[in-house]
């Protein structure tokens, strides 16, 4: 019989998707008041596991016990009923509705036949006071900063009487301070007896807040350990299965002339907010400039402005000797700028196009791929065959639609397309996000090779590890401004963390 002391006891959960064993007989236990870390790389099966717990996926094998009795969880409604709450990585909030409306929806207080919003707001205010999660019940959700939206999500679960809280990568979108606040909220909640499953791949957070940690690798359960006594290194080894090389080998940079100069650049987002506020910096040939910063501090808008996709409001951008402040994406690309976009599904790949077509997306109109306005399919195929070979893209054929490749291989298609031409400047935005370890290493080597060839490389990454292992020089962006510019060897993790959080000097 199952342990009655445990809030949750999952045994032998297995989930298969066509061609993939996403979870292979995974065990997980959670006690009241405990914070359990769920650690694993992208694609290790963390999300699949919690989706099974929450009834979004149905396990192919295995059983779930809650407080000692077997739980039948066929859909999220059942999980909520049983006292589970989940904060999804992508918030499940209705933007135009108010905080209170979002929280009480599905279990609304009523007065007669009408929805009693006033009472709902009172309940939410009371709840947020009880758990120390301050938020205005009347505020419209989409107007709130991300950290507060996340609070609304947590309150939503608590409103439904959740005893088990599942947090799916909650810190990915937070600033360091917001992260700290969240970790404190988790400790407070645990103190009231709530059990928390905390998914992350950031080792520091695991060490900071969890009691125990369950590690997954390639869909398999590799161990559950007490956090006490664990170190970053020991956890990393469990997670990756080998000791991790944090820095890749590269020669000293042989830096040349400035290739990209940005002077006092100001850029607005779609809603008219100025997100890049007077950024100035240079990237010289033969160096990798790392742009560090928490996401949402203007990096995306900066890259969009540099590549001509978003108009600059003010300031000047020069590539080589040419002023490209107002140039179109095509003009900029033709000068010799490669661009690896941040969101490859959205911006980098046309899903139904073949690998071959995706590989000429930046050159389809030029010889040898087009003559007299007519596309030349033989040349396009030949190009694709060559690049698939050279960049080690795992694809059944060059006619395979781009969308059916894995994340890492999609990224390799983009890297192949962008780096197969000799460029002056390479702009790479989050180039290894959601990519498997093998591909990360490959992509990193390609970027270093570009630098060694003499190109200027601008690397934007939210992963400090990536910045540290690649960059020769580092700038930090905070609220649209460049708040630091330093050689990589002078930078420390602590210092960058402070700068990213907006601490002055």
């Amino acid at each position: 019989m199952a342990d009655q002391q445990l809030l949750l006891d999952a045994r032998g959960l297995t989930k298969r998707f066509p061609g993939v064993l996403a979870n292979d007989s995974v065990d997980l236990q959670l006690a009241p008041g405990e914070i359990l870390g769920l650690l694993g790389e992208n694609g290790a099966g963390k999300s699949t596991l919690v989706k099974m717990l929450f009834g979004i996926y149905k396990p192919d094998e295995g059983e779930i016990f809650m407080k000692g009795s077997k739980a039948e969880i066929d859909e999220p409604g059942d999980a909520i009923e049983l006292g589970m709450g989940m904060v999804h990585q992508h918030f499940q909030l209705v933007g135009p509705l108010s905080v209170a409306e979002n929280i009480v929806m599905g279990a609304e207080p009523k007065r007669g036949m009408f929805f009693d919003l006033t009472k709902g707001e009172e309940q939410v205010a009371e709840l947020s006071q009880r758990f120390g999660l301050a938020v205005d019940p009347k505020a419209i959700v989409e107007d709130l900063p991300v950290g507060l939206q996340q609070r609304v999500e947590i309150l939503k679960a608590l409103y439904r009487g959740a005893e088990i809280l599942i947090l799916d990568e909650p810190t990915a979108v937070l600033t360091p301070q917001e992260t700290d606040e969240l970790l404190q909220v988790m400790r407070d909640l645990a103190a009231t007896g709530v059990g928390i499953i905390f998914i992350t791949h950031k080792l520091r957070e695991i060490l900071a807040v969890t009691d125990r940690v369950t590690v997954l690798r390639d869909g398999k359960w590799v161990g559950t350990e007490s956090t006490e006594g664990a170190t970053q290194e020991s956890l990393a080894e469990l997670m990756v299965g080998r000791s991790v090389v944090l820095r890749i080998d590269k020669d000293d940079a042989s830096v040349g002339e400035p290739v990209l100069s940005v002077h006092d650049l100001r850029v607005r987002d779609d809603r008219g907010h100025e997100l890049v506020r007077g950024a100035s910096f240079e990237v010289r040939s033969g160096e990798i400039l790392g742009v560090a910063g928490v996401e949402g501090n203007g990096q995306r808008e900066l890259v969009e402005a540099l590549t001509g996709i978003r108009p600059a409001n003010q300031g000047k951008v020069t590539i080589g000797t040419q002023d490209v402040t107002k140039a179109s994406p095509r003009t900029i690309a033709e000068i010799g700028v490669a661009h690896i976009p941040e969101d490859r599904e959205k911006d980098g790949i046309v899903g139904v196009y073949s690998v071959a077509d995706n590989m000429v997306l930046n050159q389809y109109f030029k010889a040898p791929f087009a003559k007299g306005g007519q596309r030349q399919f033989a040349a396009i195929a030949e190009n694709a065959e060559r690049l698939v070979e050279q960049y080690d893209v795992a694809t059944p054929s060059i006619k395979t639609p781009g969308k059916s490749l894995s994340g890492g291989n999609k990224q390799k298609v983009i890297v192949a397309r962008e780096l197969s031409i000799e460029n002056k400047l390479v702009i790479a935005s989050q180039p290894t996000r959601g990519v498997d370890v093998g591909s990360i290493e490959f992509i990193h080597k390609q970027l270093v090779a570009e630098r060694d060839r003499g190109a200027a490389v601008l690397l934007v990454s939210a992963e400090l590890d990536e910045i540290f292992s690649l960059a020769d020089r580092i700038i930090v962006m905070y609220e649209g401004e460049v708040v630091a510019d330093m050689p990589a060897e002078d930078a420390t993790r602590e210092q960058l963390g402070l700068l990213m959080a907006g601490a002055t000097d």
Partner: protein
Amino acid sequence: MTTATATTSPTVKATISKYLPWAIALAVMFAILFAMSWDSRQTEAVGAATVRAAAPLLLGALCGLIGERSGIINIGIEGQILLSAYCGFMVSSLSADASLPTVISLILGVVGGVAASALVGFFMAWCAVSLKMDQIIAGTVVNIFALGFTSYAYVQGRTQPRYPNWTVPGLSELPFVGDVLFNHGPLTYLAFFCVVGVHIALFRTTWGLRTRAIGEHPGAADTVGVDVARMRYKNMIIAGAMAGLAGMLLIQSASAFSRNMSNGKGFIALAVMLFGRYRPLGVLGAALLLGFFTALQSQLQFNQAFDIPPQFFGMIPFLLTIAVLAVAGLAARPPAAAGSPYEKE
């Protein structure tokens, strides 16, 4: 939602476009008062005709609004109106043939017409929710089918009993307002009650909260236990009933079915919905405005007051719609999930 952005202050443009319909409605009211002092009988006629013309647009727009608020774009309103007019007419006509009392045959007709359109609503929900068909195509199927079917099945020469005019005792004696507002067929009153009803339901009931949620972010509603698919079905049936009433309004004023009698009203209703910014009261303003143009057109034509070809008047509602959408279109944000089927994970 994943990027950290500070509170948005509404831009001036958004504010203007929010109050634009109301400002126009107000201006129209002053124009009426002015016209009253000039020629009160004609102004009354135009006023009453405005209300009559606005009513079907109102109901058609409410049909579109409920659908789109729930996440389903409906361009089949035109077909729903036509089909319900035909079915309602046939039911009334046949039951009158069977010598049922007039009231009964009229009521049966309304029930028949509303049921037919509600059934089409169910069909569209099936297409959009269960078959995940493109919603524009589903609406197009309805439009082609309705025009084809009603023309195919229609036999000339049938008649049905006339709808009575209900005057509201006391109120209908009032100057101007009495004739304009309180001397109409029963369904016209119903149309205006529907606006108020939908407004209250949408913003004051749990149904409304959940409806707004499934049109914006069905995933969020789903995770708190709202059955998105079921609710979309239910709402499309309710919406269909609204369009059915719109169809019956056409029968109320014409007392007979004729080929393609909806004549674009379902499409104008769509424009009314957009113009009214997906809000029942906004829709009321927009419908009255377009109704006013329709009424003015026929009155001026009748008077031969201006030497403007009637075709140009016919263009007004459509050109106005395009102009309004081109100017204010970006500010009127449609429900985020409208048009896409909800894929459960």
